[in-house]
């Protein structure tokens, strides 16, 4: 992990969701979300962002909820790239659980088996 995102970045990131979604909608359209993520994670680098976007287009294809949006940053912030500190009982949104499954099943990440 290169660095920890600043508090400022976090504010911007979470604001981006509110700003980018349609007025009156609760969730953010997938296309828009992906665009925002590409932008934001160019600022603060997260190497799994492309896989994340691919996964969503393949397996989810629906809008993104606010909780998923904000929890993704937590995930990117705290979980290392080998997913060694990812905990199935960690109360992550189910989409993120499925993303981890997707990464391991497709051999993109070799999780250390303990």
């Amino acid at each position, binding site marked *: 992990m290169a660095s920890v995102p600043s508090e400022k970045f976090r504010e911007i990131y979470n604001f981006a969701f509110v700003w980018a979604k349609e007025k009156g909608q609760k*969730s953010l359209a997938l296309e828009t979300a992906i665009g925002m993520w590409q932008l934001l994670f160019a600022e603060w680098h997260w190497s799994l962002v492309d896989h994340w976007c691919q996964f969503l287009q393949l397996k989810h294809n629906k809008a993104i909820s*606010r*909780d998923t949006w904000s*929890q993704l940053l*937590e995930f990117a912030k705290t979980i290392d790239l080998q997913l060694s500190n990812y905990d199935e009982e*960690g*109360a992550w*949104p*189910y989409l993120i*659980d499925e993303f981890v499954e997707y990464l391991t099943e497709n051999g993109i990440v070799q999780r250390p088996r303990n």
Partner: protein
Amino acid sequence: MSAQKRRTFKIEAFKHRVEIDPKYAERTWKVLEHAIHEIYNHNASGLSFEELYRNAYNMVLHKYGEKLYSGLVTTMTGHLKEIAKSIEDAQGSLFLEELDRKWGEHNKALQMIRDIMMYMDRTFVPSSGRTPVHDLGLNLWRDNIIHSSKIQSRLLDTLLDLIHRERKGEVINRGLMRNITKMLMDLGPVYQEDFEKPFLEVSASFYSGESQQLIECCDCGEYLRKAEKRLSEETERVSHYLDSGSEVKITSVVEGEMIANHMQRLVHMENSGLVNMLVDDKYEDLARMYSLFRRVTDGLLMIRDVMTLHLRETGRQLVSDPEKLKDPVDFVQHLLDEKDKYDLIISKSFNNDKTFQNALNSSFEYFINLNNRSPEFISLYVDDKLRKGLKGVSEEDVEVVLDKVMMLFRYLQEKDVFEKYYKQHLAKRLLSGKTVSDDAERSMIVKLKTECGYQFTSKLEGMFTDMKTSVDTLQGFYASQHAEIGDGPTLAVQVLTTGSWPTQPSAPCNLPTEIIGICEKFRTYYLGTHTGRRLTWQTNMGTADIKATFGKAQKHELNVSTYQMCILMLFNSVDRLSYKEIEQATEIPASDLKRCLQSLACVKGKNVLRKEPMSKDIAEDDAFYFNDKFTSKFIKVKIGTVAAQKESEPEKQETRQRVEEDRKPQIEAAIVRIMKSRRVLDHNTIVTEVTSQLQSRFLPNPVVIKKRIESLIEREFLERDKADRKLYRYLA
């Protein structure tokens, strides 16, 4: 009276000492010594008790107690040594007899001696801390006879040998044995030390050897019978000639050697072990195993574990065997039979042991839920019983069957799936009027209500209410019509409240013109009396009785489904219709249409239509003809296909989907309930609580619970805690 001076009275001892002539003491002792000799020589009759007693008394009185006591010890010891010799000289079996006889004589002598020495016993003995005469006599016997080097081991060997022979089947002198062991018991710890301990050791090695032999040549049942026999023999032996305290010790030795050491091997013995006994209902053998294994540590645990494993395995096979799953009613009957079998075993052989009942229940719960069609099949079983199986059965027996079904129901994890199917099947039964007994139906509802609460059955009861109300409505309808109906078809309508009945979305098909008239009349009548309601004909659920005349003017009455009626009525105006034409005219959905045509044209004895080509399957370019040549020996022919049957794969998927959909709001309601009361909770605890709250209906999937939580977050019922993302907060 004046006070007199009180004078104290005093009794004074002799001022001078009364001396006894020392020779007097010696003389007195000699008299007593002689008496003891006489007593031991069986010449006591010539003695004067009074004189001897007085002599002993005088000696003690004149302070010669010590001389008396030690003289007694010496004299008795001398005699006992002679006695020892005579016992040692006894040959073979006379040994014990001689010992016994001498013991008896010694006791008699001892009693006389004690009587004579009673004054000494009461005065000199306690004050000098000596052993009282009786006990002294026993101790001397012990030291000089029992512990004599030539007697001690011979005695033990003789006793053990006799016991060994008796174990081998010989008859021994039990009375003599009893006397000897009683003698040992009288001597205090001698019984335990000198006899019991070695007895137990020797017995252990005897039974160790015997059990080794038996386990090689006997089957399990035989072995257990022999073990039981040995145990009762040992108990009997104790009661006849051993100390009662030995019973628990010797039985524990036998239990250890014969049972505990061979438990594993016995239970798992090929062709005769526990599993074979269970399979063959060997009640007696099982009862014996239970009562024997109960005596040893973890014996019952072993039986229970092996039984559980076997049950789970046979159960698992039963619910995964495609052969057994072909007929749902049969399948459930198998389950009930299996339960009956084990209930009987537990009651007859396992003493109604609760832990075994629990093992049985948990095993059934395990394998019944391995097959996710169990709820459907159990409902089909009930359907079969209520449709015809319970015809003519007494009320009590009906209750028995229904109670057994309820017991299976309790094992189901997915009770909500059962509810769905039960509703469907009940609807069909009610609408086709094919129920054997209204009371039985009601009884089943009551049982479900008792088990699951009012909510489970409120809709079912709604269905019954609708049926009743419909009867009244229909009466009202016909009363209002009187003259206007005439020769037209007779309509019987059941008005179903949408919420109570299983929803099966179906657009009504096209009804024949002959029917439409009266249907509209009914609709008008009903909506006239019930404003604000909407009626939709459920053409996929009805039945019709139609009269048909065939080629040679035979008349038959056909009982068909509404769909089938629509199809058949088309042939009143034409003789031939293609599949496509029928589809267009009736607008019956394709899969239903194919099924109906099949039952009208392809079933022997019911083929009122003829199909070209004559294949079994319905193809889109088939043609259908009215079958002039139809015959049946019955005037009334039933062709309807409204009976409940095992769902096809696609139907099953659909039902499962609906069940999953229904579960979502239930899970959400549980989450909200829990969070409302607890306010803040971590994820895992929510999952546990929700599962426990819903377990009487189904087992919720943790992933589904998670999705529901996220949905509730999105709808702002909950939020994540700002500091700890694993905690959720309830938003008021």
